[in-house]
């Protein structure tokens, strides 16, 4: 069964068990707000999950119950006995349905309409829901508390340390090969176990992302919108606990983006956008954080509407709200009980969203950032701390102490006396010039008040998002994957460390906080946020294309949609046939276009393109990048290879027109599905060897045979041939119907005339 569904069943079952007490308490005291909220959250969660798991019956039930409970919460309806009974009946029913799904048995849906009807005001339940089926499928997975995993992990680390000590003693005191072999085996098992145990805590963020495409599709479809979702960075690893915490917020945000952010196709067209909305969900590690970004190209947040809503609900004073800065206005989206949309929808509900989302993120020490551009889109960035995650690090040494630096932050490591490295003292500061980059330099021994060891320093170039700088260290030791935990408050307060860890040697180590280190040293970077942002907006609009350097040295780009792949082929596989280049590849011959001299190199890169039927190649010097083409492209003067010119990073780039390429290469044949005119040729080696290929290149199917072959045109060398056969002669003659056999143009035009005649 679907893993997501399993998850949903397990979760619902668990919540229901926990909820049992709440339900009884609520029944006893329907005015108990806390109980009401608990039940409301339950049905809301079920509703949310059903949306993308495609469980319409559950969705209907939970939506109905949520409506009623919302009315009670708002004070629009009293929680009388009948209402309580009806809600409880629905909750019971949800439990039964979930069990039925798990056991994969059908459950009669009669009575569900009545259950829902009973929720309406003043109705008594007349039908008792069918009794539980009694099926409860055997559980296929065990849900463990993270605490247990923690203990397992800590026990594992103990084991590693004990193993290390044992190994040391064996080596020092009882050097015995048999003992060492046994120890070796133990070590291997321990290493294996450790990896497994570590894995139980870590999960690729992919587990969060896999459900998205389906959810986006379904959500968009139910709203009559069309949204393309792109998922990036799915292999970033996160602590399982973090993933669990992120799950609901991510779903909420994505749904909100589709429901409130991305406009209807008609509205998008009117706004001059493509009808297809774009949603990008990405995860990446930046410094000591993991950033999950959800970017849409919708309408952005309408702060005026937000203010109107909040003021309208009487929660806040209109004038106060208008006086807020734009950023503060955006943050109003996190106000409790706010729904940015006027009508309640099945998708994003009634404002249970963003306040809860923010609370969840902040609960794990994260934060959430909004960047909204009215009419252009919204970017939501969730920053979660890396602590608890396993981080690949590089261990550096200063004096006799070691520190870990997150590998993700490191751009490059060079030796101080390497070529093209210069270090200058500028006033009190130091600057390192690494090739053509000039970067501020911090000596870690200064930052840490540690004595510097003699010898050549190593320069670690780190990037902290807003800029890069160099950390000079004495030595670079090793790379190691470490579990980083927060250090004691007094240590974290130094602002230099991102956490502490226990590497394999059993000596505690601190991980450097690269941003903190830069701040401590007084480095300031000019933030180019505005420029960056306008880039993002431009990116959301264009077409993706492969940027490459052509053989003639020009920068060109081909729309990615036409590109199948890029591969290197030996130039000996390229040949000229009929004046056109042909490439032999994968046991077929495809047309090739080359914009310059390709013969010099033994091998050449070829962009394989396909239009679905035909394939062709385009020889290039090198593939450079995938770029997004801006929409303002200068039109070419005449249609041809190049469909336009645009600027990418300040350089003119010609855009290759795949349509023109295929249109001009299309004569090469292979359009086998349309009826090809047939040319019959007489049985003659010269005809077969010389004329047949020429005809084939011109797009005819050539058959050999005499009279009686079904053909549109017949060519023969026999001067006595009858009928309308084209007779080829050895010498130029004026005889009607005769053509000199080396008059290529005349032959083709005669064939064309015959075929036109035959078609008529």
């Amino acid at each position, binding site marked *: 069964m679907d893993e997501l569904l399993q998850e949903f069943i397990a979760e619902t079952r668990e919540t229901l068990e926990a909820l049992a007490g709440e339900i009884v308490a609520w029944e006893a005291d329907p005015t108990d707000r806390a109980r009401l909220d608990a039940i409301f959250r339950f049905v809301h969660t079920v509703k949310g999950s059903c949306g993308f798991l495609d469980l319409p019956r559950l969705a209907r039930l939970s939506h109905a119950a949520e409506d009623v409970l919302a009315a009670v919460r708002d004070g629009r309806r009293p929680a009388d006995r009948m209402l309580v009974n009806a809600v409880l009946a629905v909750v019971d029913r949800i439990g039964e349905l979930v069990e039925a799904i798990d056991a994969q048995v059908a459950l009669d849906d009669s009575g569900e309409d009545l259950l829902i009807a009973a929720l309406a005001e003043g109705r008594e339940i007349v039908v008792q829901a069918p009794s539980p089926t009694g099926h409860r499928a055997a559980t296929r997975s065990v849900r463990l508390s993270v605490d247990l995993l923690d203990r397992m992990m800590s026990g594992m680390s103990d084991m590693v340390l004990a193993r290390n000590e044992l190994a040391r003693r064996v080596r020092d005191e009882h050097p015995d090969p048999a003992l060492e072999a046994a120890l070796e085996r133990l070590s291997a098992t321990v290493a294996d176990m450790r990896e497994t145990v570590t894995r139980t805590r870590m999960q690729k963020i992919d587990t969060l992302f896999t459900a998205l495409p389906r959810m986006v599709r379904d959500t968009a479809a139910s709203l009559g919108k069309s949204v393309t979702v792109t998922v990036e960075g799915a292999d970033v690893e996160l602590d399982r606990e973090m993933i669990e915490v992120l799950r609901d917020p991510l779903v909420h945000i994505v749904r909100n983006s589709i429901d409130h952010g991305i406009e209807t196709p008609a509205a998008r067209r009117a706004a001059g956008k493509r009808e297809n909305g774009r949603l990008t969900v990405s995860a990446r590690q930046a410094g000591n954080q993991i950033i999950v970004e959800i970017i849409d190209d919708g309408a952005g947040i309408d702060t005026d509407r937000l203010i109107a809503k909040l003021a309208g609900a009487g929660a806040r004073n209109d004038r106060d709200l208008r006086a807020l800065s734009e950023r503060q206005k955006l943050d109003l989206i996190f106000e409790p009980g706010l729904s940015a949309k006027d009508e309640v929808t099945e998708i994003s509900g009634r404002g249970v969203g963003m306040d809860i989302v923010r609370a969840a993120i902040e609960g794990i020490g994260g934060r959430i950032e909004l960047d909204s551009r009215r009419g252009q889109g919204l970017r939501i960035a969730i920053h979660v701390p890396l602590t608890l995650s396993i981080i690949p690090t590089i261990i550096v040494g200063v004096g006799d102490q070691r520190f870990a630096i997150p590998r993700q932050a490191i751009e490059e490591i060079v030796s101080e006396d390497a070529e093209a490295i210069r270090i200058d003292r500028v006033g009190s500061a130091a600057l390192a010039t690494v090739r053509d980059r000039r970067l501020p330099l911090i000596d870690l021994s200064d930052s840490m008040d540690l004595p510097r060891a003699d010898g050549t320093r190593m320069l670690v170039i780190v990037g902290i998002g807003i800029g890069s700088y160099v950390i000079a260290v004495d030595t670079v030791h090793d790379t190691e994957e470490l579990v980083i935990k927060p250090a004691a408050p*007094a240590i974290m307060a130094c602002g230099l460390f991102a956490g502490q860890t226990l590497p394999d040697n059993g000596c505690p180590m601190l991980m450097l906080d690269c941003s903190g280190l830069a701040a401590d040293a007084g480095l300031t970077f000019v933030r180019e946020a505005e420029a960056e942002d306008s880039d993002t907006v431009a990116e959301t609009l264009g077409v993706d294309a492969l940027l490459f350097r052509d053989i003639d040295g020009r920068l060109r780009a081909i729309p990615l949609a036409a590109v199948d792949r890029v591969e290197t082929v030996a130039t000996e596989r390229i040949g000229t046939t009929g004046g056109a280049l042909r490439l032999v590849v994968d046991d077929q011959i495809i047309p090739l276009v080359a914009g310059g001299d390709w013969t010099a190199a033994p091998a050449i890169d070829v962009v394989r393109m396909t239009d679905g039927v035909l394939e062709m190649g385009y020889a290039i010097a090198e593939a450079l990048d995938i770029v997004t083409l801006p929409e303002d492209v200068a039109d070419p003067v005449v249609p041809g290879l190049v469909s336009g010119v645009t600027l990418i990073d300040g350089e003119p780039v010609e855009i290759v027109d795949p349509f023109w390429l295929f249109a001009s290469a299309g004569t090469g044949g292979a359009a086998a599905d349309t009826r090809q005119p047939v040319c019959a040729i007489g049985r003659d080696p010269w005809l077969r060897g010389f004329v047949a290929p020429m005809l084939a290149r011109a797009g005819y199917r050539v058959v050999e045979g005499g009279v009686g072959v079904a053909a549109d045109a017949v060519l023969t060398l026999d001067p006595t041939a009858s009928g309308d056969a084209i007779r080829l002669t050895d010498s130029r003659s004026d005889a009607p119907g005769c053509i000199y056999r080396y008059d290529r143009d005349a032959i083709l035009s005669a064939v064309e005339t015959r075929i036109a005649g035959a078609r008529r």
Partner: protein
Amino acid sequence: MKDLFLIAHIAGRTVAIASEQVGSVVDIGEVTPVPRAPRLVRGLATLRSRVVTVIDTRIALGVDGEGTAARAVIVRVDGHDYAMLVDALDDVSAFALHPLANGTALVREWRAIATGIVERDGEPVLAIDLTRLVPRAAMAA
């Protein structure tokens, strides 16, 4: 009513530590220093695969000169484990806790941790709350 106390020597004085505060008593091995941390943070040490922050109680109490103590009492504060260095440990026994006698003049550092007096073989021993010696984030700033 009597409670269990651990009798220890800290900064040259005998003290009684409420036993529920004491996670364990350990010998501290190698300590990794933490550069630029407050001076009372001696560094980090390993305790059965956990990293503990080693606190020099002498410095925390404002007594001059770093101690050479290698034994420590482990306490847990806000999810972090701390090894509080002690000069020596005596034993654990039950005592009745009495309020501090009037006029017991303690300096600020001692006053901050004192919780009362226990009577041990006729000798008054200061009962202390060891966790109050743990530096809070604000202290380091």
